């Protein structure tokens, strides 16, 4: 069961390990990222940050989709972490069960506009967001569970 799909460019870090995992009660952290899946160093450091009692899986986006669609894994309580809107979009395309996306952190970068304290979107990102909204997905901006949720729809021009 997918508990949350979160976009966060730091992937596994304090907010995730220390607030989301316990608050959602997940037992599996699935990092869906092509680059990290090939990077042993990053895999090692993320393994260190893994909260006690959770399983950490690091897979390329396509394999992550496969994993999520596999009936064998339906009993796992999964928090999916991606580091870009495009990857989140790809997961949504591949996996029916995703109904909501949490925008946690996307740092300011060239061509991106800050739409909240911790989220910056490029115009390509905004196009994808609009498409996801059109499909009826619930998109929220929230860094930690105790923050007030903001609807992404209210923060971008439609």
């Amino acid at each position, binding site marked *: 069961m997918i508990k949350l799909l979160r976009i966060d460019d730091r992937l596994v870090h304090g907010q995730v390990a220390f607030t989301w995992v*316990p608050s959602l009660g997940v037992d599996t952290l699935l990092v869906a990222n092509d680059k990290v899946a090939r990077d042993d160093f990053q895999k090692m450091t993320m393994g260190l940050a893994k909260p006690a009692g959770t399983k950490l899986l690091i897979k390329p986006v396509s394999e992550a989709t496969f994993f999520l669609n596999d009936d064998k894994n339906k009993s796992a309580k999964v928090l999916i972490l991606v580091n870009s809107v495009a990857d989140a979009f790809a997961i949504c395309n591949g996996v029916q069960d995703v109904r909501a996306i949490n925008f946690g952190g996307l740092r300011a970068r060239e061509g991106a506009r800050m739409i909240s304290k911790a989220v910056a979107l490029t115009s390509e990102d905004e196009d994808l967001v609009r498409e996801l909204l059109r499909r009826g997905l619930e998109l929220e901006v929230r860094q930690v*569970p*105790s923050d007030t949720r903001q609807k992404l729809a209210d923060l971008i021009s439609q």
Partner: protein
Amino acid sequence: MTFSYLLITLVAMFGHAEDFLATSLLSRPLVLGPLVGAVLGDLNQGIMIGASLELIFMGNIKVGAAIPPDVITGGVLGTAFAILSGQGAAVALALAVPISILAEMLISGLFIFRSAFNKKFAEAAEAGDFKRFQLLHIGSGLLKPLLMGAVVFLALQLGAGTMKAFLETIPPWVNTGLHVAGNMQSGLGIALLMNVMFSKKVAPWFFLGFLLSSFLHLPMIAVACLGVVMALIVTNASATGTPADNEEPSDIPTQNQPASFSKSDIRSIFFRSFTLEANFNFETCQNTGFAYSLMRILKKIYPSPERMALALKRHLQFFNTSPYGSTLILGIAAAMEEENSRLKDFDSESINNVKLGLMGPVAGIFDSLFWGTLKVIAAGVGTSLAMNGNALGPLLFIILFNVPHFVVRYQLTFIGYRQGYKFLQKVSGSHVMDKLTSGAAIVGLMVVGAMPALLMSVSTPLEVASGVSLQDTLNKILPQMIPLGFTMLTYYLLKRQVRTTYLLLGLLLVGFLGSVLHLLA
């Protein structure tokens, strides 16, 4: 009076200067409350108010760029108004909560505004002008204490008279009601901690902590010590020797160690890292703090402005991690910068790659250990003493947190520099991290479990029959079951995604009405 106001303003500014003081929890109400009390000639009251505030705000912690209510401004003003009007802790709490929420908005505004400095930083970096870079870092950092100091002073100077006159009109029954409401609200503080620590798997430890303090009346220190013993037994840690942090004696350099940096150069990274969060902003977070921490060693290896400019620009990239583990990354970056300065074909991009790769995991590890465990234990022990006006409370709080904090932070600087991420590989190969996190969870949860029993005094004055109090009957079944019940209920509602503001107001109402209707005391 203006002189006292100035002193109180200084206390608030000291709290806000924590960003220069290694995020060492000196800004917590448990510390600032006594300082305000001392200024106003009532240390005892200050300690007790600080403890009550700490309980409510205990679960509000800064993780990543998520900014909690500004308890510094709220706490200092609330405490000051309460002592000035002679109305006590209840009023302090009632004032601190709304003030904190308002002040947080100002600070968020500042963190947005600071991003505007990024252009200035970029210009200084471009010119390799490290002096201006450092000045900007310090200057922007000073904005927060200055701004909030001005707010506190104005609030006192303009509002204290009116506030005092208003607060003095509060009738005793309202004050009693607020007092019960304040006690109830600590339930939210505890529930917020549970929200990040509690799960079915570790639930027994929570209840063990509760039972030890409710039936056996063990003080918080005893529960914490028992927790440590339990953790050692369960994780079998005592059999494996010392934890990884101490594995390598820090004064034995490895063979191939280049000697560009002296021990005091590396030490300067540790000290400079105290200002890591000084220029925190929403766009790039701790980037200039990182550069500032490395400045002395950068000066040494890049004497020309051109090379300095390259290094400064490199470190302007977004950076955010747990300040408590930051020195590990700083140490590693120092070693890589050194390599970069000596080798022509060194890929300087790799420095940023390592930084970016490490900041998330390091934040994950150290936020959990320091915020999630150590602070909880320190606050549990500290508030339990301070609630009775014992000055040892705030002192123990600072010591329990900061001795491990500074030892680890200092050691990590050298470990990072000398061992690089080989240290991490070593740790990841062993089961140290698993043991550490599960052990920490045990101690932390036992302390949190003891909190409803020891720190949240809510009872009922009802009588089942004339002369037979309901509370006595309840005590025979399970002492302190009322605080436990309210805490569990709050936790349940938190899990159901009810907003904290509603919960805070809800607990306030239940406590206040319960007191007025003589259901709760």
